[in-house]
């Protein structure tokens, strides 16, 4: 396993408000480079907000404000000189609902590199090929790169979206319930892919599926009501939770 040294995320006393409603309360958490962190907790607990704060997608909601800091490696991501576009290329994102653009398979993956000024030609083709390989979908699409992306199955579309994010060669990959709309077979492929990606990119994954969190992550963070209740090694958190709330959640007593 190649362990990357880039892609460390550090939230310090980080709070987020949507208008008057506070979605995150002074969250402090450090995510080491190259690990896979699962975010678990009941609906509305702030998992997605924490995830979307990593690449400043929270700002798309009008009336959002925050306090505290988020560091990616050594830089504060909200600093004035930070280019949010460059940030989003370093921190890729995959959504709950697969969202390929209505273009060809190739075009979808080429979007990121093209935006970075990679001209059409062998370099672009190489970047696309490598991203599709890393996302474990190359064998299924190699001979039909010009087909519409929307013709792929749901699971393939989701892996294509992962490939699209990987084509920017990001340091961090954010996934917001990436398998919740997929059947068990497709879910398994995504999980295997995430397992293989560990070490080469920092992964933060929101999931409602606790077994999935246990399978794909090194560390797990439990959020409740906008607060970080507990974070630790996945195996430890699921077998010996320190907090009563965590135990109640993972044993299915609420949430």
């Amino acid at each position, binding site marked *: 396993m190649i362990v990357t040294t880039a892609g460390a995320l550090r939230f310090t006393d980080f709070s987020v408000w949507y208008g008057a409603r506070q979605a995150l309360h002074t969250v402090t958490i450090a995510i080491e480079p190259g690990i896979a962190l699962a975010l678990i907790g009941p609906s509305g607990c702030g998992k997605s907000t924490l995830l979307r704060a990593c*690449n400043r*997608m929270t700002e*798309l909601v*009008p009336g959002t404000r925050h306090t505290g800091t988020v560091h990616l490696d050594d830089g504060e991501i909200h600093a004035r000189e930070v280019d949010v*576009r*460059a*940030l*989003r*290329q370093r921190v*890729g*994102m995959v*959504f709950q*609902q697969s*969202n*390929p*653009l*209505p*273009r*060809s398979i*190739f*075009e979808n993956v080429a*979007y*990121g590199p093209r*935006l970075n000024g990679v001209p059409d030609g062998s370099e672009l083709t190489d970047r696309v090929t490598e991203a599709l390989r890393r996302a474990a979908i190359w064998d299924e699409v190699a001979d039909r790169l*010009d*087909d*519409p*992306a*929307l*013709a792929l199955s749901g699971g393939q579309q989701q892996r294509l*979206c992962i490939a*699209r*994010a990987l084509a*920017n060669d990001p340091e961090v990959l954010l996934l917001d319930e990436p398998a919740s709309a997929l059947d068990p077979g497709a879910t398994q492929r995504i999980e295997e892919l995430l397992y293989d990606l560990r070490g080469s990119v920092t992964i933060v994954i929101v999931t409602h599926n606790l077994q999935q969190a246990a399978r794909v992550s090194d560390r797990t963070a439990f959020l409740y009501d906008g607060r970080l209740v507990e974070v630790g090694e996945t195996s430890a958190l699921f077998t010996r939770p320190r907090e009563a709330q965590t135990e109640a959640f993972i044993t299915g007593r609420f949430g």
Partner: protein
Amino acid sequence: MSSIVSPTVLGAPSGRRERRVPGGHELANASRTAQRRQRTDRLATLLIWSGAALALLPLALIIGLLLVRGSAALSVAFFTELPDLSLPSGGGIANAIAGSALLVGIASLMGLPIGIAAGLHLATHPHTRLSRISRYLSDVLNGVPSIVIGVFAWEVFVRPVGHFSAWAGGLALAVLLVPLVARTTETVVSLVPVELTEAALALGFPRWRTSLQVVLRTALPGIVTGALVAVARIAGETAPLLFTAFGNAFWSMSPDEPIAALPLTIYAYAGSPYEGWQTLAWGGALVLLLLVAGLSVVARLATRRQLSRVGAGR
């Protein structure tokens, strides 16, 4: 449910639970019920069919009458010559066809970019104060009678310069065009899933490139269709042209002078005492109808082609 209603009452639902072998009179009842239902069904079908036919009848009559009376006027001269009272045929209406093209062209060049830009803004920033106000105003503008738009255009574009002109006519049509296009554009653009916008933004696309390359490109077929339908609609407008473009019996392609237009020619010649000119009016009406119908068909085809190609092509 217990059987309160006797099954001998025609059409009453039988609530019987227990299974029984039906007796002779019950079978007769059942078949009578079936017959009654069949009659009701036929009657309802007939009523609906005749309602639909009645609604389409005026359209069929208009098209039929236009084809019969209008096609009599069509000839090479009709499309190439000017109106001429000395000829029994009345000459042609080349000036009106060309004038309508110029007027619609001016209106489209001015109205379509503004309307599409406004619609794009309404769809991408739906809740800002500017959007709320302009959405309301464009609905109001859509409801303003076109003759009022004509009076407005006369006051603003004709009176200050002191004469009628194609500019004034085109501007009046553009005023009609903007709210139509803005609202259809808003509708089709807001149909673009928000997930696509998020996908592009998460890849590092700036807002403006997301709007242009993802949102606009995805919604383009719908925008084109909306624009074509709106252009077809204003091409047939008469009232806004009465005191702006005014009409012109002679050949003019100068935007600074009064200009002929198909609807104006139809209006003027249909009421004239000369049979040749009345025939010209019929012919003009047919040409106008074909132009508008043609634009609608093109709009339909464009949409269908795009729909079947969604996502295809690199």
